[in-house]
Structures are given as C-alpha cells and as structure tokens.
C-alpha cells in the first residue's frame, strides 16, 4: 500500500511534465495546425535557461518559474513571426520539417555552448526533504511539481472556458472554419497562442531542472513520449492533453514498478490500444482525424 502511494506520486510528478508540455503542444496544434516537433527542444531550453540564470544571476527556482516562461513566450512569438507563419499556408508537413530542423539547431547550439555533460542545478531548501503522509515519506519536490502543474492546468482551463479570449481560441481550435465564418479574427491569436504553448514547454523544463539531467538531449526522448500523450488524449484536445499526460506518467511509474523492462513499451501499447478503440484519442472528436 505504501509503495503504491509512492508510485502514484512519482507517476503524477512525471506526468506533470508531460501534461504541461502536452497542453502547449495541444493549443499550438489546435490553433495553428502545426505539429510542433521543436516542443522537446523548448522544454530543454526552459531547463537550460533556469540553470544558466541560477548560475549567472543567482535567480532561484521561484524566480525562474516566472521569468523563464516569459522569456520563452517572447522566444516562441519570435519563432512564429520569423519562421512558422510563412509556412502556415502550405502543407502542414513543411512546418513539421521546419520545427524538426529547429530542434537540431537548438540542440547543437546548446551543446556547443554548454557541452554535453549537463549543467548543475540546486533547488531551494524549502523544497527538499520529505513530508510524512500515512507513514510514507513523500518528497516535497514531487508534491510541489504536481501542485504547480494542477494549478497551471486549472488556470488554463479557466482561461479557456471563462474568458472571451479562451472562447475564441477554443472556437478556433475546434471549428476553425465556423469560427472564421462567424467573423472571428483567428489570425490575431496565432502568434500569442504559439508563444503561450512554447512558454508551457519552458515551464515544464524549469520544473524538471532539479529532478532531471539538464542536457541538450533531454528533450529528444521527451518529445516522442509527448506525441504519444497527445495521441492518447486526442490531437488538439486540451483536456485530453492533461489527462493523457498524467495517465502516461502513471503508466510509466507502475510499469517501472511491476514490469521494469516493459515500462517504456507500455506507454506505446497504451497508445496503440487507445487508437484502436478510439481512433481520435480519449477526448478527441472523430472528425479530427479525418
């Protein structure tokens, strides 16, 4: 029982990174129709930025949680304005290629500048240690990660359902032609939405910094799992991305505990099962895959 509680927390903590990043991937796909291959690289940049800011300016995790997503927002908007927007009218494959190329470029630039061994990162002492819950010591940092992820997901959900901006974005995500026909200027929202999605990947990176090896390659495997998360949740579905993220985290943790060798395979088995049973994913609509 104790072990199950530990595995659950570990799964949800890992799932938090997936959920946050997948959320960004989902809004970008929803509004722009771009499969952002560079999302793993943006996650990596978030972690690297946190490490560099700590090293050079002494900016702690608390500051990084605010500053880095803002930097990434600006960076994302620049990427959209300078690069992505020109390919939007063309086949979506072009933007996949572009973002794939961008990934290679970013990874190599980081390697060139910061080497391949990774960067050190110290988290604030408040977040170290463990709290006792029902006789089990749970790491404070993991609980913190889960808390932040849930708060941000809730915030995004409120933004999407309770504000005019959110409704426009949702309309653009779910029925772009209809939204356009009703006179909503979808185009205006393209740049900020892309930046917002990138900021979410950056935030996931900051949260991962104390917990994962901060290297140029850290996003390479992450993006593959992220694609699985989005497929499981339903391409373009915001709720699906979040649920899928936590679900995959849990599958990974319990897989590691009970079938260690198959832990990673299980995620893709889950994906295959979901796709067979519900081709559009758990929360996707059938038309989405048409």
């Amino acid at each position: 029982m104790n072990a199950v509680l530990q595995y659950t927390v570990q799964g949800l903590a890992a799932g938090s990174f997936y959920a946050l990043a997948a959320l960004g991937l989902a809004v970008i796909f929803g509004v722009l129709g771009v499969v952002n291959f560079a999302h793993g690289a943006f996650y990596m940049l978030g972690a690297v930025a946190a490490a560099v800011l700590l090293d050079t300016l002494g900016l702690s995790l608390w500051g990084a949680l605010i500053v880095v997503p803002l930097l990434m927002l600006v960076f994302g908007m620049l990427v959209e304005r300078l690069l992505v927007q020109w390919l939007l009218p063309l086949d979506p494959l072009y933007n996949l290629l572009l973002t794939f190329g961008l990934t290679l470029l970013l990874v190599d630039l980081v390697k060139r500048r910061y080497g391949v061994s990774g960067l050190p990162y110290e988290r604030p002492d408040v977040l170290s240690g463990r709290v006792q819950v029902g006789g089990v010591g749970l790491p404070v940092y993991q609980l913190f990660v889960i808390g932040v992820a849930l708060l941000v997901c809730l915030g995004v959900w409120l933004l999407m359902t309770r504000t005019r901006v959110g409704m426009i974005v949702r309309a653009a995500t779910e029925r772009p032609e209809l939204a356009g026909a009703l006179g909503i200027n979808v185009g205006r929202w393209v740049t900020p939405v892309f930046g917002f999605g990138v900021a979410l990947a950056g935030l996931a990176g900051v949260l991962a910094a104390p917990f994962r090896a901060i290297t140029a390659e850290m996003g390479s495997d992450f993006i593959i799992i992220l694609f699985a998360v989005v497929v499981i949740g339903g391409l373009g579905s915001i709720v699906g991305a979040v649920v899928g993220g936590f679900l995959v985290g849990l599958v990974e943790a319990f897989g590691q505990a009970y079938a260690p060798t198959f832990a990673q395979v299980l995620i893709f088995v889950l994906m295959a099962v979901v796709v067979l049973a519900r081709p559009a994913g758990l929360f996707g609509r059938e038309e989405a895959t048409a």
Partner: protein
Amino acid sequence: MNKRRNAGATALMAGLTAGALVTAGCGAGGPSAGGGDFTDDKVVLALLNDASGVYKDVSGPNSKIAIQMAIDDYQEKYGDDAVVEDIEVTSADHQNEPDIANTKAQELYDREGADIILDVPTSSAALAVATQAKNKKKLYMNIGAGTTELTGAQCNKYTFHYAYDTWMLANGTGTVVTEEGDKNWQLIYPDYAFGQDMVKSFTGAIEAGGGKVGGTIATPFPNDNFATYITKAGAAKPQVIGTMHAGGDLINLVKQYNESGLKEKGIDLAVGLMFISDIHSLGVEAFEGTIFTDAWYWNLDEKSREWADRFLEETGDRPTYAHAGNYSAALQYLEAVQAAGTDDADKVVEELEGKKIDDMFLRNGEIRAEDHRVIHDVYLAKVKGPDDVKEDWDYEEIIKTIPAEEAFRPAAESGCSM
C-alpha cells in the same frame, strides 16, 4: 491529416538516416607500404571517438590535444635522435555507432595512413575497430571502451586495452564496498550489452567478497525517469544500491536517488562507471560520498598534477582518465617506435609486449603479453563533500590503491589466444 503528418515524419526520419549512412562513405584502397622503415616517411596517430555526443566531455576532441602533447614530449625528449621526424595526429567522429566506427577505422588505416588508432569509446564500436586492426595488421590501443572482450575471446595481436574495463570496475567497487560492510546489494542497470556485462562482473565480485545481490533491475536505455526503479530497489532494504548507468542517465539517476530519501535511511549508492566530468557537471553536492573505481586522478601526485596543469592550460579543463590514458598510450607507442626504429606494426608490437612502464598515467604498469591488457594500479575514490573542496576540480578522495596485479582480470582467465 494526422496520419499523413506522421507518415511524413517517418519518411523524413528514414531519409535522414539513409543520408547519414551515405555521407559516412566508404574508404577503399589507399597507399601500400613505401620504401624505408616508415610508411610515407611519417607516423600518423589517429584518434577515433565521440566528438559531439554523450561521451564528448569524457574524452572527445580534448584527447587530440592530449595526443599532441605526447608527440611534443617525444620530440623534445629525443630531439635529433628521434627515428622519425614527421609525426601527425588526425581524428574522426564515430558517433558511438559500430557501423560508423568500422568504416572510419578502414578509412583511417587505408586512406589517412594511420599507424595506430586510439581511444574508441562504446564497446560495440571498439570491437568493430579491433577487427579492422586485426585485418589490416595495424595497431589499435583502446582507452574509452569497457568491454573485457577486447582482451578476452575477441583479442588479437594488434589490439591493446588501456585504462579500465568492466572487470576492473566491478572488482574495485564491488569487492571493496562489500568487504567494507555493505554486503547486501541491489543492482540497477541499463538493459544493453555494457549494463549486462557490468552486472555479471559485479555479481561475481560481490559474491567473491562475501556479499550477495538481492535483486537486479533492468531499465530502458536511454531513460530519464528512474524514481520508481529506485523506490523499488530501496524497498528490498539493501545496504547499497549499485548503478551501472553512465553519462546523462547516471546524472538522472543520482538526482532522483538524492530525492528518494534513501541516503538518509543509510542506503548507499555505488556507481559502476564514473568520470570526473560527471562530477564536474552535476556538482559535488549531488555525488557526495559516492564510491567508485577510478583508473587515474589528476591530483594523484606531483607527476600527474604537473601534467594536469599543462592540460588545463591547453584546454581550460582538468583531464579525465581517458584524456590521460590517450596521452600515455600515444607516448608509449612512440617510445616503442623509437625502440623498434620503424612503424612496422609487428616490430612495434614486439617492443610493447611485456614492457613495464611507469609514466604519469601508469603506476606499476605492464603491457601484458598474454592478452594485451595494460595493467596498472587503480584507485577506489570517494566523492568529497562541498566543504572539503579546496580548488576547482578537487572532487575526489582516494581511499584505497588497488595494486596492478589485483586490479585486473588474471591473464589465465581471459580466454584470449592470439
């Protein structure tokens, strides 16, 4: 729509992979032996290693500088008496792929006229190069790879193994940690050749030391999430958890071990393979108290320190034992060439075999003739706490010296016949 995108991505990947294979190219032909005692009137040392990937900091381009230092030292020592004037160093990136290593090795031997290939991390790549060395009858000194196969079943006349191997790591860390009281082990390892090899070696060493391996946990490779594996290993209540991970995976694992609270519960972490560059990247805090086997340490004594100072001046970093090993291997090769008066591989091998060496890298060193294992003293090291660090890169406390005769697998057990 989605399917089309995915198909596009797949096609893209396939295309890129194919492209990489084509550019790797294939070297063929090349010059044959010319007149005189030296082919092309020069000696060419070739460094083949990972110039851009995960093992770049462990050895990488800085080893080329180390080899150049060896050439400079040789030329300074012999001056006009040197048997060969023109000595070059060249390098190639094998990206840790056995296929690429295989092609590059042929290219280096044939087209670039390499007399010796040095380094080659990643066991599978190292074995591919050993086969080429055997076929081309040219020298190969491995520094970066760990497999005991190089001096075991797959040994050959032209291949030498420097620095470390999995037997030596397991014997050092496994035996000594067990003998010092941590009898009950759990092993976590990456599920590929190196990890499996390490588990086998460690299990043997631990049992020989009177301990037992309570369980082994295989993990995918590469992997970034080890939290549950560690919890599971800890749940078996061992005295020590041994990890066979390297590079980025090791850093992930150590971060998550520190998070797990097992350290406070008195469950130690022993690391199978670690380089000083790993400690440098993550900081001593994260590794404090970790025990591992080291082939060499820059601050071992006056001799090693003096060399490390020169290396620091050239590169801005302190050397790992792979850097020092490349220097020593290059220097000892040139000494053998000097003694033989030729770069003819068979004559140089004769000079090398059985040679006893003491240089800044090898203490009580000997190039064993039976299996070409280069034996030397190795060290059990403990990572210092932040308060004990007196200067940059001052990370290790040497807690035990393992004498050369005990540090490596006995030649009789190697299974090597040349």
